[in-house]
């Protein structure tokens, strides 16, 4: 399925804004994304398997908190970076 990558992480995808990745859950998709673009997951997800602050994941237009949320073929996943501070 298609995954939107924020600009701050496009150094991992060679500048590509939308990439392909697969997984039956958001968590699985993020692991698959890391297999395709090594290192990208740890910048978004810490070693306790929690999304880092300011990283937002949307499935279609739904904001996701639970990384175990299931995915279906055709879902569009968008990763966004909430910026704050200077």
């Amino acid at each position, binding site marked *: 399925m298609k995954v939107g990558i924020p600009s*701050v*992480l496009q*150094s991992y995808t*060679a*500048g590509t804004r939308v990439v392909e990745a697969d997984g039956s859950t958001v968590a699985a998709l993020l692991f698959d994304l890391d297999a395709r673009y*090594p*290192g990208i997951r*740890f*910048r*978004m*997800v*810490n*070693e*306790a398997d*929690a999304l*880092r*602050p*300011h*990283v937002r994941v949307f499935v279609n237009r739904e904001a996701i908190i639970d990384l175990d949320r299931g995915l279906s073929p055709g879902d569009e996943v968008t990763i966004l*970076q*909430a*910026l*704050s*501070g200077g």
Partner: protein
Amino acid sequence: MSEQPVPPGTRAFEPLSQSDRRDAVALEGLTLLVGTKKGAFFLTASPERDRFALVGPVFLGHIVHHAVVDPRDRRTLLVALRSGHLGPTVFRSTDCGRSWQESARPPAFSKPKDARRSTTVEQVFWLTPGHASELGVWYAGTSPEGLFRSEDGGNTWQPVSGWNDHPKWMQWTGDMKERNPDGSPIHSILIDPRDAKHMYFGTGSAGVFETIDQGASWNLLNTGMLSPTGPDPHPEYGYDPHCMTLHPLAPDLLYQQNHCGIYRMRRPEARWLRIGDNMPRDVGDIGFAIGLHPRDPNTAWVFPMDGTDVWPRTCPGGRPAVYRTRDGGESWTRLDRGFPERAWYTVLRQSMAVDTEKNIGVYLGTTNGEVWGSIDEGEGWRCLAAHLPHIYSVEVANFADAQ
């Protein structure tokens, strides 16, 4: 500084692939590695050190706490960074900055059996190349207080479980709400040049730790220091050694600039002596950084800051000066020639560096983005770069010749 001519032998921005171009530099010779809140910058010295050319930035927009070259090959450069909103990591170059690779396994705590007690690395704060006999070994100190070891030149990092999983870790590292604004890191990871298994480090929450078994077990080394918190001025732990260093030619001699003064310890004694008591009373001995002369164990430099009232931690009286001792801290000399008459600089713990040239160079970086240098052991100072971002660290590198 960018309009200054580039010294011979310095080339910036060789053409590389699009994805690498923004971070490609070609560093040669004596270079200052400057870690800032917005990226890493480099100041490459001319042979006489009369000019310093600004190279970079690399990793623009990332918070760079430390950039360190490996003295064992003088080519490998590790940079500890994170962005304001992404996780912490380490980038490494094995060709003097021409190309960079991210660590395949950045420092990260092991998952505890009880997930509620999980601890996560917020930033990689400190990098130390390993012992000369252990090629490829590096140590990293993180915030919160994690210690990590790499055996492959910084590509993969493993937790040092003797520290990270120590039964007293929670006790020693203290209350999260009391952590420093930039986190509470492990810093000043020091390795005894005579023994790879003998190490020290400092934390801002507990104090100084020592291991003689390469991190399997740790002992506190706090006797003699003054604690900044609590009713007991001399508890077992609860000290804040801002920056500690040992002399490479006299590894039994330790110095530290503490939150509460300047100290010295001569091993095998295990007691800190407050040599900052010999500083002028109206200046005090508060600060963050300390640098040692590479060939004279009795010579050190500090940059005092105001520790009165609400502890501004700027130059006392707004009058910047370095203080130098030639006698192991028994006396101190004020060195302010070249600094502005009035300035309110803050110099953080990683922001003083000393080179090994015939006439020793001393360098410091300020949180308002200025790099200052002296090439006569601190007698006279000049501004080498200004208008940089908030400076976290300054290190000296002497890169191998290009091949």
